[in-house]
């Protein structure tokens, strides 16, 4: 069964998808009436995240991704709180392996499995290297990154069921290690694994359950998924492709595109262009969006579509790929079915504002997705 996850905006949230300055959380400018700070609440933004998590759960999502950026609250902490305030929602911790020793990460994970009834997932990130990586205090040679991730997961897996487990790696060495009795033997958290280079795909073949990629044009996705399957099957394992993408759905096509045009009108184009120029100077991998389909202030957003997916969602504050879903509830469900048709086993959706849109997508769009087992059951 395909997993549907929602994203928790630990990085803050817009209160209105089309208004860049209408923010929630203390990452943007705080203004009177914004949810954070709220009166009488000791941790208002965390309360808001819990509200989103519960909404996603009630509206039918299987889990929630808790992203990790330098400026966000830590996903391990957020996950342990959310686990105790939800019943079935799975929490996906975005995590770069080196930050915690794998033996200790196994211990913390086993505790999370025990307190949540086995609802933990990981989004294993290997990290991009360079100055961004050094912010975290991590200087590692580019080519060694996936080897370290593989070793981390070797050790994590090795101690998980109790050991005794010994390992002599380049990065990790343990001798006769293993989780103690009450912690050992929990269900191992499923692993979503980010990264699409050959090194990444070989590494995940050994341990990952899902290969997670940001949304790209369908041709690129098909080619990538073929490689995922080929390389994973060399280890005799089945790694399912998974996609994260942003979604803006409304009752009608026109309402959806009006919302995008409103965002277009309110966007700070000077800042966007400056940021775009700056990112060209970095060594990030090129955008998957062809130049003529990249958003500009003079273009009608409705013209910017690839395979029926809109290529300008970053203008509306979307994190991750600018390519995502815009349209009526029916269109949105069709696009999701298109992705499921590529063999996708997991989707991580996000929409702004995250509370309201979790309810909307869960209530209005997911029930129309043909490739999803129906969760709504009419009263007898």
């Amino acid at each position, binding site marked *: 069964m395909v997993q549907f996850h929602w994203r928790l905006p630990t990085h803050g949230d817009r209160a209105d998808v089309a208004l860049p300055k209408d923010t929630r959380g203390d990452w943007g400018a705080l203004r009177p009436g914004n949810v954070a700070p709220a009166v009488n609440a000791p941790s208002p933004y965390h309360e808001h995240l*819990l509200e989103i998590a519960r909404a996603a759960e009630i509206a039918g999502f299987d889990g929630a991704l808790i992203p990790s950026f330098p400026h966000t609250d830590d996903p391990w902490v957020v996950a342990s709180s959310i686990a105790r305030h939800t019943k079935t929602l799975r929490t996906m911790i975005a995590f770069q392996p080196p930050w915690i020793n794998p033996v200790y990460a196994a211990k913390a994970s086993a505790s999370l499995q025990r307190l949540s009834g086995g609802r933990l997932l990981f989004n294993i990130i290997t990290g991009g290297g360079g100055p961004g990586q050094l912010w975290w205090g991590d200087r590692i040679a580019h080519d060694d990154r996936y080897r370290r991730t593989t070793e981390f997961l070797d050790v994590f897996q090795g101690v998980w069921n109790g050991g005794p487990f010994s390992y002599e790696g380049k990065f990790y060495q343990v001798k006769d290690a293993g989780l103690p009795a009450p912690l050992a033997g929990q269900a191992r958290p499923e692993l979503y694994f980010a990264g699409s280079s050959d090194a990444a795909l070989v590494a995940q073949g050994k341990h990952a359950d899902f290969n997670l990629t940001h949304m790209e044009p369908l041709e690129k996705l098909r080619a990538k998924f073929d490689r995922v399957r080929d390389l994973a099957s060399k280890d005799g394992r089945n790694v399912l492709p998974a996609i994260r993408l942003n979604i803006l759905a409304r009752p009608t096509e026109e309402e959806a595109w009006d919302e995008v045009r409103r965002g277009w009108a309110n966007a700070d184009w000077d800042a966007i262009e400056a940021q775009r120029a700056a990112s060209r100077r970095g060594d990030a991998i090129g955008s998957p969006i062809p130049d003529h389909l990249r958003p500009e202030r003079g273009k009608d957003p409705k013209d910017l579509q690839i395979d029926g997916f809109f290529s300008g969602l970053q203008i509306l504050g979307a994190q991750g790929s600018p390519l995502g879903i815009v349209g009526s509830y029916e269109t949105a469900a069709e696009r999701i079915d298109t992705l499921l048709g590529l063999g996708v086993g997991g989707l991580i959706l996000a929409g702004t504002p995250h509370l309201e849109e979790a*309810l909307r997508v869960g209530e209005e769009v997911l029930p129309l997705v043909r490739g999803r087992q129906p969760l709504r059951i009419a009263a007898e």
Partner: protein
Amino acid sequence: MSYEIFWRLPPNGDGRSHDPAQWTRGDFHGETPVAAFSRAGGDDARYSYFDHLVQIARAVELTGLDGLFIPQTDEGEEPLVTAGALARDVTRLRFAPELPAHFLSAVYTAKIATSFQRLSGGRLILNLATQDPAQHAWHGYSWSEAEQVARHDEFLTVVKGFWHDAPYTFEGRYYEVLNGGFAGPLKGQPFPEIWLSGVSAEALDLSARHADVHVLDASTPQDAAAIIADLNRRAGRPLRYALRAEITARHTAEEAQRDAAFARDPQAGDPALVGDFDQVAARLSAYLDAGVSTLILSARPHLEEAYRFAQHVLPRLPERTPVRIAAE
């Protein structure tokens, strides 16, 4: 300015539209109800409409409002049970579930109320509903308003006596008690605030005798001011006044008019305030100036709109200081 803001909790379904046929949150409407939050089978059997109501309650607390008003509806959940279910999920909100006194023993209501005070830290309001005798009710009873008012009068007399004056003995037209009163840990809880409503002379006189707060039916601030002056004169003391209002507040008046173009929410109170954030705030402020100190607001869907109200309208209202809750 000293006032408080309550949000209406919908006990019989919720949705994006004012049209009850579209209230898919909850399984109260439609010939073949398909309830978004009421699923059956497997893990999902654990979710019900109450999970959504808890979400609304938490949002109301998180965004800084003061209480929940839970109306009586024919097909909807029982308000007192709903309040009990939510009371431990929020720490600060007060609860005003509408109670039908005509179905309840006064003594037993006192007992329920004192337990509620204990479990909630004194956050219950005794909010007695008067039903419209013209309405064909599901329960098959029909009382004139005068008879309901007479019963409420005795009901409140007995609840107060039982609470404060043990051993309490009373013999009336509707209720009888011999040596009643609480003992042990149930004794000495704060007596709930009393909210009453109604427009007839009998109802106003009842409020004059018993109410801490009278819930107005006033379509303009001028109407509100007139009723307030009349009732304060009848009572010989200043009461506090609440107003139920349905709001549709948006960034622009055009958006608000468009979104309010659905049918009027059949459960909302008067008035229906439609406009941009400044306009709605100005209308509410006019009621505050007229003497209202409790706003009971509603908008669908109740969760999302609580956020919208708190984010955009609340900061445009006068600075709010807590109201003085009637002691005892």
